[in-house]
C-alpha cells in the first residue's frame, strides 16, 4: 500500500495532475517509500517483491547494497510495468529528487501503457512472479534444493535464446511446430499430481516418446525452418521431466516479460527524461531547487566514453524530432534541400512536434527509432563519434565521425538487444538426434569460454551432443560437446555440415 508522507502525497497528486494535463496516459501508479536496503532487494529481484529463490538475486543484492554503502551508486527510480504500476521512492532523498523521480516515473508509466511492444505484456506480472516462486519452491521441497538450483542454472544459461521479435504475434511467443505429436497427444490430463503415474504409466509414456523420437528421425529435417526461440523448442522436444518443463517455461515467460523493456531502453528512458525535464522546469520546481535539479539532471544525462547513455540519446532525439516537426523539417522537400542556409532557417510552422513524439512513443522500438530519426545533422550537432580501442596504447580513440558508421554502430548495439543471434538449425543433426545450433555471425566472435560453458548447459537439457556453427577468427568452425569432450573442427577443410546461410 502506498505509504507516502503527507507532503509527498500532496506533491504526487500535483505531479499526477500535471502529467495528465501534458497528455500522458497511464495506469494508476502507486508509489511506495522504502529504505535503501529494500530498494536494493527489489532491484536485485528485477523490480519485483517476490521471485523464485536463486543465488543470482543474492549476488545482485550483495553488489547493489555494497555499492550503495560505499557511496558508489544510488538507485533513484524504479518502476514496474504492471497495472497498476508500482514505483519506488527511496527514503531520505531530497524533496527535489523525489519530485523528479515521480515526474520521470509518470513518463515511464505512460510509455508502458501505450507503446505497442508492451501491448501483449502480462500486466499482472506481480502475481505471476509470486506464482512462479511458489511453484519453484514446491519443486525444491520435492526434489531438493541443489537439484532444482542446478537445473535453474542451466535454464538461465539459455534464457536469452528467445525470439524477441515474436512478442507481437502471440502473448507468449511463437508456436512451435509439432513434428508428429506432442506429449499431450498420448498423455491424459491429470488434475492431481499423485495420480499421474497411474493415469499415464511411465513405461507407456516412455515408449510413446521413443516412437515419437523415431518418427522425428525419419523426417528429412527437423525443425524444417531454423528456430529462434530455442527455449521453447527445448521445452517441447527435450527429454525433460514435467517439473523441469515447468521451470523452463517459467524462465521463458519471465524472459519474454523483460524483453520489450530491453528493446525500448533508449526510447523509454528518453521519453521519461523528456517529460521529467518538461514538467519539472515548467510546472514543478520552485526557485530554490533549480540548481539541484540541473545538477541531478545533467548527472543523469552525462555520456562518458565507453558507455552509451540511453537517457541522453533518447531525450535529445525526442527534442530534435519535436523541433523538426514543429518547423516542418521533414518530408521530401526537406530531404532534397541542399542549401545550408535555407535548411538552417527552415520553418514552415507546421506545429506537429508534440503529435509526432506521441506517435513515436506508440509504435517504435529502439532499432526503428534510431534507424529513422538519427540524422547527420543530429550527429554533428551532438559531436557524436565512433571510438575504438587502440591496442597499443590501451586507450580509447576516436575512430570516425562518419554518420553512417555511427548509425551502423548504434544499430548493431541495439539489434537483438546486443545479444548474438542463435538459431536451432537441426535437431537431428547427422541423423543422430544431435542438436545443431547456428550463430548468425555479424562481425563479432562469441566469447569462447562462455560458449563452451553454455553448450554444456544445453547438453544438460537436450541430453544429446550439442553442435554449434560459428565464425571464430575469420574461419567457419564447428564446436561440439558430446557429454564428455569439447571439440572444435574447422569447416574449411572438411565440408561436412552445410551451414545454411
Amino acid at each position, binding site marked *: 500500500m502506498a505509504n507516502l508522507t503527507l507532503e509527498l502525497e500532496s506533491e504526487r497528486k500535483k505531479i499526477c495532475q500535471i502529467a495528465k494535463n501534458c497528455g500522458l496516459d497511464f495506469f494508476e501508479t502507486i508509489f511506495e517509500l522504502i529504505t535503501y536496503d529494500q530498494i536494493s532487494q527489489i532491484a536485485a529481484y528485477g523490480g519485483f517483491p517476490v521471485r523464485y529463490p536463486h543465488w543470482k538475486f543474492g549476488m545482485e543484492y550483495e553488489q547493489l547494497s555494497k555499492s550503495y554503502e560505499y557511496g558508489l551508486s544510488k538507485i533513484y527510480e524504479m518502476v514496474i510495468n504492471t497495472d497498476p504500476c508500482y514505483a519506488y521512492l527511496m527514503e531520505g532523498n531530497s524533496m527535489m529528487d523525489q519530485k523528479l523521480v515521480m515526474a520521470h516515473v509518470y513518463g515511464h508509466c505512460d510509455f508502458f501503457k501505450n507503446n505497442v511492444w508492451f501491448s501483449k505484456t502480462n500486466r499482472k506480472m506481480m502475481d505471476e512472479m509470486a506464482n512462479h516462486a511458489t511453484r519453484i519452491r514446491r519443486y525444491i521441497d520435492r526434489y531438493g534444493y541443489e537439484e532444482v538450483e542446478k537445473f535453474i542454472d542451466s535454464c538461465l544459461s539459455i534464457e536469452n535464446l528467445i525470439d524477441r521479435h515474436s512478442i507481437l504475434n502471440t502473448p507468449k511467443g511463437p508456436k512451435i511446430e509439432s513434428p508428429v505429436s506432442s506429449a499431450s497427444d498420448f498423455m491424459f490430463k491429470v488434475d492431481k499430481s499423485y495420480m499421474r503415474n497411474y493415469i499415464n504409466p511411465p513405461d507407456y509414456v516412455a515408449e510413446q516418446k521413443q516412437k515419437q523420437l523415431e518418427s522425428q528421425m525419419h523426417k528429412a529435417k527437423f525443425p524444417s525452418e531454423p528456430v529462434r526461440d530455442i527455449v521453447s523448442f527445448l521445452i517441447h522436444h527435450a527429454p525433460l521431466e514435467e517439473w523441469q518443463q515447468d521451470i523452463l517455461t517459467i524462465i521463458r515467460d519471465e524472459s519474454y516479460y523483460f524483453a520489450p523493456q530491453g528493446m525500448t531502453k533508449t526510447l523509454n528512458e528518453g521519453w521519461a527524461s523528456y517529460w521529467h525535464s518538461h514538467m519539472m522546469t515548467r510546472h514543478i520546481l520552485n526557485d530554490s531547487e533549480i540548481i539541484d535539479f540541473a545538477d541531478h539532471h545533467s548527472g543523469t544525462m552525462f555520456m562518458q566514453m565507453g558507455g552509451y547513455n540511453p537517457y541522453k540519446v533518447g531525450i535529445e532525439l525526442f527534442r530534435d524530432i519535436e523541433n523538426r516537426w514543429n518547423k516542418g523539417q521533414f518530408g521530401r522537400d526537406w530531404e532534397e534541400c541542399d542549401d545550408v542556409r535555407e535548411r538552417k532557417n527552415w520553418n514552415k510552422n507546421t506545429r506537429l512536434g508534440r503529435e509526432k513524439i506521441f506517435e513515436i512513443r506508440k509504435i517504435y522500438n529502439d532499432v526503428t527509432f534510431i534507424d529513422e530519426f538519427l540524422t547527420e545533422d543530429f550527429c554533428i550537432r551532438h559531436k557524436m563519434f565512433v*571510438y575504438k580501442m587502440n591496442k597499443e596504447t590501451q586507450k580509447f580513440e576516436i575512430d570516425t565521425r562518419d554518420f553512417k558508421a555511427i548509425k551502423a554502430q548504434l544499430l548493431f548495439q541495439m539489434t537483438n538487444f546486443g545479444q548474438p543471434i542463435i538459431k536451432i538449425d537441426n535437431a537431428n543433426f547427422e541423423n543422430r538426434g544431435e542438436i545443431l545450433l547456428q550463430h548468425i555471425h555479424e562481425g563479432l566472435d562469441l566469447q569462447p569460454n*562462455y560458449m563452451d560453458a553454455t553448450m554444456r548447459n544445453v547438453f544438460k537439457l537436450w541430453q544429446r551432443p550439442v553442435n554449434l556453427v560459428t565464425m571464430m577468427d575469420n574461419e567457419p568452425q564447428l564446436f561440439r560437446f558430446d557429454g564428455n569432450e569439447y571439440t572444435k573442427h574447422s569447416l574449411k577443410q572438411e565440408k561436412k555440415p552445410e551451414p545454411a546461410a
Partner: protein
Amino acid sequence: MAIREDQNRFKSIIKGKVRDDFKRYVTNGELIGRREDEFVKIPLPRIDIPSFRYGPKQNEKGVGQGDGEPDESASGSSESGQGKAGDQAGEHLLEVEISIEELAEILGEKLELPRIEPKGSKNILAEKNKYSGIAPVGPEGLRKFKQTYKKALSRYISTGTYDPDHPVIVPIRRDFQYRTVKKTQLPHTKAVVIYMMDVSGSMGEEQKEIVRLESFWINTWLKKHYKGLETRFIIHDAAAKEVDEETFFKTSESGGTLISSAYKLCQQIIEADYPSSEWNIYPFHFSDGDNWSGEDTRLCLSLLKEFFLPRVNVFSYGQVESKYGSGQFLKDLQKEFSQDDRLTLSQIENRDKILNSIKDFLGKGK
C-alpha cells in the same frame, strides 16, 4: 527479507569456491595484502551464468560524444573504461569479503585441525558485568517499563480489577522492575604469540615470504580461539631485537646466527609481560637451522628445557629450507626432545609445504 536466503546461498557458494581453491590462497601472498581488521578480501572470478555472448571485442568499439579529431585520444576518456566493460567480457573479478573467523573455520576444516584447549582455562577466570538481571529496587534510570507494566497488568487481572473498556493500569511500588548488574565469570583466554625469525644472510626473500604466510595462518587460527590475541616480533642474527610487524618481514641482515640471543630476549619478554599463569604462550621460531656454534645450540636446548617448555602451550620451530642453511638445528632439537609434545618441529621445504607445516604446528590442539 526473502533476499537474505538468496544472499546466504550466494555466500555459501562463494565460500565453497574458496574452500575448493584453498591451497592456492594459502600459498598466495596477495590475500594477506588485502587484510583488514575483521575481513580478508579475496578476489574471485565472478561467478556467472554462462550464456552465448559476444567476446571482448564488443567493448572495443562504441558511440561517444564530445570534441576531438579522429585518431586523437578521445577526450573525457575514462581510464576505468576497460574495467567497466569487464562484466561483458567475463574477466571481471568479484571481491568477496570473508571474515577471519570463517577463514579460520575453512582452515580448520581443510586441515582437520582440532580445537585448541586453552591451558588452565578453568582456573583463570575474569569477571564481567552485564545488565541482564532484574531487581525490585534500583535507580529510576534503569527502570524497565515493559516489565513493570506487565507486572502491574497481571496484578490487575489476578485481583479482578482489570476493566477492558477502561484499560488504565497504574503501577504501585511493588510492580516496579529495574535492570541490575549481573556478574558473570568468563574463562579467561589471553594468548600471546611471539614470532622469532632468523634474518641472517642465509635467509632469503622466499624464505621470509614463507614465514609471512605461515604466521598469517597461524594468527588466523589462534584468533579464532583467543579473543585478545597479542603478537610480538623478534628478529635475530647474532644479536636479537624486538621489532614491529612491518620491520619483522622487511629486515634483512647479513651477520651470523646466534639463536640463543632470540631465546634470551623472548625469555625476557615473557618474564616481563606474560606470566604463564595467566597467559597462553605460543613462541614460534623460524630459521634455516644454521646456528653459529654447538655451544650456542646447547645453550638454546637448556633454555628450552628449563624455561620455555614448562611455561608455554607449545613451542614451535619451523625450519625453512634455504640454499645456505645446514639444517643442523632441527636435528639437534629432534635428538634432544623427540618425546616431548610441548615442542613442535616442522620442516618447510617450499611454499607448497606451508599447509603441511601449519598442520604440524596446530594439529596438536594445544
